[in-house]
């Protein structure tokens, strides 16, 4: 399902932080992980992925490092920082509250039937 870009805009950083909090990944790996773990519901546009990663890196929520991948090639691995973890926790709490509110508005219709 294709979502409105504005709808996804706010949650993309939280999604990336959440995925990275479970383990360090490189760009391609991350985009695959987002799709898989969201059951193909969420998909981060390729043109958005790297700018987003760099912005998060600038905010010191993640950090990048060049390392050799299993294939032997060099890849830039991203991992979440402690500041990122704090931010993630905050955003998760906000999203949870948002979901609760929406749920009340839509009368529980947000939950899949």
């Amino acid at each position: 399902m294709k979502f409105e870009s504005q709808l996804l805009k706010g949650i993309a950083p939280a999604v990336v932080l959440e995925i990275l909090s479970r383990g360090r990944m490189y760009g391609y790996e991350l985009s695959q992980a987002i799709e898989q773990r969201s059951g193909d519901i969420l998909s981060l546009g390729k043109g958005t992925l790297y700018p987003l990663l760099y912005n998060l890196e600038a905010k010191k929520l993640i950090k990048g490092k060049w390392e050799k991948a299993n294939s032997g090639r060099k890849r830039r691995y991203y991992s979440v920082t402690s500041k990122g973890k704090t931010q993630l926790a905050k955003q998760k709490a906000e999203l949870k509250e948002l979901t609760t509110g929406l749920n009340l508005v839509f009368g529980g219709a947000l939950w899949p039937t």
Partner: protein
Amino acid sequence: MKRNETDKLFENLPACAADFIKIVIKKMRYHKKVRREVMAELAAHFEDELRDCKTSDEKEQKAQQLIEKFGDAKLLGVLLRRGKKRCRPLWLKTISHACNIIFMVYISIIVLAFIYNAWAVYTWSTNDIDYVKIINQLNRPKRTHADNAWEYYKRAIESYVEIPKEFEEKLKCDFCTVKFDNLSKVDETKLEQWLQQNEASWQYIVKATTLRYYWRNVSGLSPYDNEENSKHNKQMKKLEKLGIWIAEKEVSREDYKKAMNTLLTVMKIGKHLLSSKITLEYLVGTDINCWGESAILRIVANYPVDRDCLAITLRELEEMYINGYPMLDKQDQEIEMLGCMQSSIKNNWKIYEQLNPSLLLYRWSRPSTEKRARQFFEKVDYQSPFERNKDQQITNEEITLFYNPMSDFWRPSWNTLIELCYKQKTRFRAVVTILALERWKIVKGIYPENLNDLVSAEYLKELPMDPYSDKPLVYKKTADGFLLYSISHNFIDDGGVLAKNKKGETKLWANEGDAVFWPVMGK
């Protein structure tokens, strides 16, 4: 990034993918190192995406799809640059922003300065002062036209016959070696012919020098727009050269009295130009005087000039500047400077080619520029080099006119000019003294013990003062004559050692040694 490194990055990618990444990186426009990293990251992403493709066609197809998903290369490049810029450390961001602010402020100042200066230049145009008219009025004494020597000089110039080109080089001479006898018979004949052709011109010159006053209406003050002044000065120099060669001819015929008379005429040309209010004309006058003085000394040094001839020449020279040797005038200089500034701004923008463009930041308005010019002339004085050295005052060249490059550019080198005036005056007085000494020698058989004897016996009206000391010129009797010299620029009496410049060339005035007026150099 080196070519082979780039090739290595893209070796497993189809050409379209490589081209796309290159375009993105090019549009990124950022530091090389950062772009290299991003390029590697994108190439790695493409490689991972195309890993499972078996054939090159499949790769190509998937790469195209991926490129579509990435979107516009230019936009992506911009977003990546923004992201990376935000990754810079705080101190670097601060410096970068500070540099941007400084640059913007600098550009704003330049723009404002341009606008201000455009207005300032406009004020010059709207508030015109006819400085040329003022100078011409100052130049002209309250006399009739008939008393003006310029009318005769004009006729002399008009009737002047140029030296034949093939002969011109041979007739170039310096102060010490002008000699008719040095020429071959053929050249001598040519020279005689040329002098005869200029007989009429010479007669006008002689008539001109009998008149007391000289004034000429100038049409401009700035050297940029006044070729007429320059042409006039060259023409007057030609008249002086004519006189020098006529004197030389008379010397070769042993008619020393006539030769001295001719040289006095030459010096009177110089005297007329010294009365001009225009600096350049004044300087040409001093140059003409120098030539006349040198020629007189050379004749006295090398030929048996009788005492009557010496007496007449001496009297004429003493009367020439009976009211004092003319010095440059502050008021004239100020008007000339203001006139030059106005002319250069209004008529000719060549001034800007000679100035650093950053000076456009400074003030150019007429009121501020004129104020600075007047301030400068209020501060300058007529102190001799000795007085200036003694008081250790700030030299006039150090009176800088801050933030007003127009005034700085046009203000005269006052110290240098005044020093030149003193030197010329000293040289003139030295020539008069030498004639008096030679006359004394003829009459008494020996040279006097000191210069005071000349004044007491009325051979000389006053002692010749040295501008580099508060005393008269140094006079010393020697075995074969006498020494007469100034202690010169170093303010030290070197015992009459000839002055030499940095190249070791002997000069009358130089930083080392003394200015020796007698014996004459190259006798």
